[in-house]
């Protein structure tokens, strides 16, 4: 079973995000970049399936050179090969353009399954996975929390939570599945894994290597534009409910919830 996992690099969720002076983007100077957490679930699932069925796991990333680090992390976890699509012209591309570049890099690989995260934790668009499936002409099953590949390796059942229930969807292969929290607990890379990753192949491809026209990418090629990025509103200070007795405090709390917060 050959599996492709797409990897996006995003700011660490612990990073304090600052909005840049253009009010449309973030300051990237002091950011710690990590693998998108949802993509990590994809890597882990792919590795588990490989352990069961054999085959190869290829990770595909897109972005500046620093993305290599996240690809190496996936290799250290146990993936076999990596492809980095990197090209100055990609800077500022929207999700559809990203999906186009990914499709061009993936279409000639052998794959039975493709995993992407259900969304990137940076822009929260949630479009790349579905678009990629569409461009490759394969089915797409979103928000997987459980993936069961049939023993004969020909079909897959995917579980997705829907409003407290579970929807089980079956698909033939190849299929693209987007990973959701709860799918698994990603492993940590061990030292031997990290040392082995050093020697695993990592191919770099530019847009022209993939036969793509750079005019369709970057800011110019965007079909959707970011107008504004605003910080969350400042939180008002908390309030301590005063009172001599628990009864008094409860009455005061009820009054505040009713009159000030207007929630009851």
């Amino acid at each position: 079973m050959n599996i492709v996992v797409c990897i996006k690099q995003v700011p660490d969720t612990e990073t304090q995000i600052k909005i840049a002076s253009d009010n449309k983007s973030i300051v990237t100077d002091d950011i710690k970049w990590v693998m998108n957490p949802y993509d990590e679930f994809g890597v882990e699932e792919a590795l588990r399936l490989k352990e069961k069925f054999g085959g190869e796991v290829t990770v595909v990333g897109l972005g500046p050179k620093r993305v290599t680090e996240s690809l190496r992390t996936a290799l250290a976890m146990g993936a076999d090969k990596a492809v980095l699509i990197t090209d100055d012209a990609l800077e500022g591309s929207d999700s559809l353009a990203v999906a186009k570049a990914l499709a061009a890099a993936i279409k000639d690989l052998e794959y039975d399954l493709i995993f992407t995260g259900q969304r990137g934790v940076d822009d929260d668009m949630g479009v790349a996975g579905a678009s990629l499936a569409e461009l490759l002409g394969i089915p797409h099953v979103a928000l997987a929390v459980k993936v069961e590949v049939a023993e004969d390796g020909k079909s897959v059942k995917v579980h997705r939570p829907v409003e407290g229930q579970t929807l089980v969807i079956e698909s033939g292969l190849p299929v693209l599945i987007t990973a959701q929290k709860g799918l698994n607990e990603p492993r940590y890379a061990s030292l031997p894994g990290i040392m082995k990753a050093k020697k695993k192949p990592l191919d770099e491809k530019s847009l022209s290597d993939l036969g793509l026209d750079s005019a369709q990418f970057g800011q110019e090629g965007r079909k959707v534009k970011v107008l504004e990025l605003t910080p969350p509103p400042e939180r008002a200070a908390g309030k301590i409910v005063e009172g001599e007795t628990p009864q008094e405090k409860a009455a005061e709390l009820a009054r505040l919830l009713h009159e000030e917060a207007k929630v009851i």
Partner: protein
Amino acid sequence: MDFALTDEQKMFKEQVIRFATKEIKPRCQEHDLKGEFDFESFRKLGEFGILGLHFPEHLGGSDADVMTCVVAGEALGEAGLDGGLTLAYGAHTFLCADTIFAHGTQAQQEKYIPDLASGEKIGCMGLTEPGAGSDVASISTRAEKRGDRYVLNGSKMFITNGPIADVAVVYAKTDRDQKHAGISAFIVEKGTPGFSAGKPLNKMGVRSSHTSELIFEDCEIPAENLLGQEGAGFLMAMRTVEWDRSTLMAPFVGGMTYVLRRCVRYALERHQFGRPIAEFQAIKHKLAEIKIFIEAARSLVYRIAWCKDQGRPLNHLEAAVAKLFIGDWSLGPANDAVTLHGGYGYCHEYEVERNFRDSRLAPIGGGTSEITKKIISKLI
């Protein structure tokens, strides 16, 4: 000289920090306060490969160099693990397992190292005695050869992991008339008749590590449990002490980085006199001094690791300097970290008081500062 970590070391450090932060850190405070050893975390350290990092793969290790061990130890500290757990790891891996690895026969290595590397078994090392601490050559535990066995009599004191260890490396006199040259090292297994451990001592710091007495009463062990040659024990202990002063210190240096991060955050958030306390020069100076300590301490610890990786087997002077600096000079910054937090610093929640308690061991364990200075002065 290249001070940069390799890409692989950097990635490993990240992974160790992530692992320790998520899997172990949430359990530390409870174990510290109760003075209980955290078996589950210890096993997790084994599963992750930390306990056997520098052993060869066929013995369950990862073939890491000393520098990588130091980086891993530092990462455990940076993740905010308590000094008790990291001391338990250090005593287990470097004082016990490494002594067996470095001086044991192939049969001894194969018998003990894999289980110690995985954490399946816990190790300890017994050198100090109730009546012999700094004056190592005066230990009085005896090992008498009788046929194909040695019979041990005596006791050890302050032994980290003593009450929970499955495997003990024990130093005893095979020749009572000699000083250093009369000391030999043995492997003693838990359950051997005549071998017992005392109750865990109630300590100021490193509370989640168990420390106790070890007691030997006509404890018979097979002669094959001798490590290396008779009389070579003191040199082995000296080699071990060098690990003690590098890899065991690394979590401590990392711990100060963790503490500094907490201090910076607190200084920015805490307001007095209408502004963050970080704006007061006295507070800024404390932060600067903690940072200076970390940078200097890290360089000294890295340097020993570097020397060892260059194939210099013994680096007494470098090790003693690092030990002394970290032991004595950390007390000021550890104290400042508490002060900077005001009354909150005196409470468990902010962890700086735990770091303060844990730090107090550094000028005592593995050779006191007075003894370390004695060594340095002799070597210069």
